[in-house]
């Protein structure tokens, strides 16, 4: 039996994780996949193919950003920055474009839709 299974919240982490925690881990996983993408593309090959190719190729972009052979600390840091950026965008976006509230079911402004 694992120690984490003594806690119900930890044993069901995929259900009990907070939205911000989930965003943080998702960002780390995305960075890990991007780093493997960077590893898959050889910058020497990009050099041979030409700089213009590197500008338009996503793998090349990652290689240009030196996202090759990143270690876990770099990935965690990049994931944190990405999560913070998305959080700020969400807050600013929510402030600039407030979500629309549905009209009350019996309200005069409710548009009846019939199929």
């Amino acid at each position: 039996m694992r120690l984490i299974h003594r806690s119900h919240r930890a044993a069901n982490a995929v259900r009990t994780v907070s939205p911000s925690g989930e965003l943080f881990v998702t960002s780390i996983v995305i960075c890990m996949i991007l780093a493997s993408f960077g590893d898959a593309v050889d910058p020497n090959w990009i050099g041979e193919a030409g700089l213009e190719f590197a500008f338009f190729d996503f793998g090349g972009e990652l290689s240009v950003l030196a996202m090759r052979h990143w270690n876990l600390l770099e990935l965690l840091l990049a994931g944190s920055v990405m999560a913070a950026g998305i959080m700020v965008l969400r807050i600013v976006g929510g402030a600039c474009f407030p979500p629309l509230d549905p009209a009350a079911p019996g309200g005069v402004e409710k548009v009846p839709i019939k199929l």
Partner: protein
Amino acid sequence: MELELFSGAFFSALLAIILIDLVLAGDNALIIGLVARNLPKESQNKVIFWGTFGAIAIRALMAILVVYILAVPGFMLVGGLALVWIARKLLTPQENAEENHLVKAPAASFAAAVRTIVIADAVMGIDNVLAIGGASHGSILLILIGLAISVPIIVWGSQLVIKLVDRYPSVILIGGAVLCWTAYTMIVREPMLVAWFEAHPASKLVLAVLAFSIALAPWYAERLSESMKPLTVLLPAILIWMLGFEVASSFWKVQTDYLMATTQGEYLLDGLRWIGWLPFAALFLWVRERLVLRNARLARSPQ
């Protein structure tokens, strides 16, 4: 590969080891309690001491062994595949508290109690030691530090770990992701496959996405609607299909890249690679739909 001391890579491996120790720690205190509960009071203290000592000794022995085992060609690949499965199991929600299958009944004697504790720790610690072996990149120093961290968790730190993961369940998700990343790096470092991955660099990306899609399936399946649930099977299956063609092209020396294809057969083979999985995916979805409908009908029908 020996890591440079106190470099970024060294601290990264150390962080991975700490996370792995946290999420894969076994509940030794519970095992000791279960085993020793029927023994006399004076024997209980001896069982606690020698059981803990035996558990630490067996963990150290396994950690040393795993370094040598992972150096054998093929074992890095097997270990990596095992870690993907361990990460998946870690993230799979547990509806009820897991029964402890390692201890069937309280021990009747001191020797039997210590033996049960040591065997239980060995069984519980296999995944932990394997993951630490993979994360340490063969560095004995990191293995020792990993042991130095896991031993206090075994002896005193259980309540602290439980409090931490209970307050921040995202630690489990990070642990799963780190296990999966370790598995990916282990497979890519496999001596038998290094040259192949150099020749097929895009396969590294496919492998990474495949590993994450299998290991993190319990997590993203929770966020998918019922109609999108088959994606948890289809996505890994399509990636395995693609990877299979890449491997097959190496074995049978056939060209599966349409840019380099010259014969009609090679063009057909490439077409098969890109769209050949569609009939299988359609068949899978059809069978699944039939099974869902059948189960719903059975559930509705009177007993």
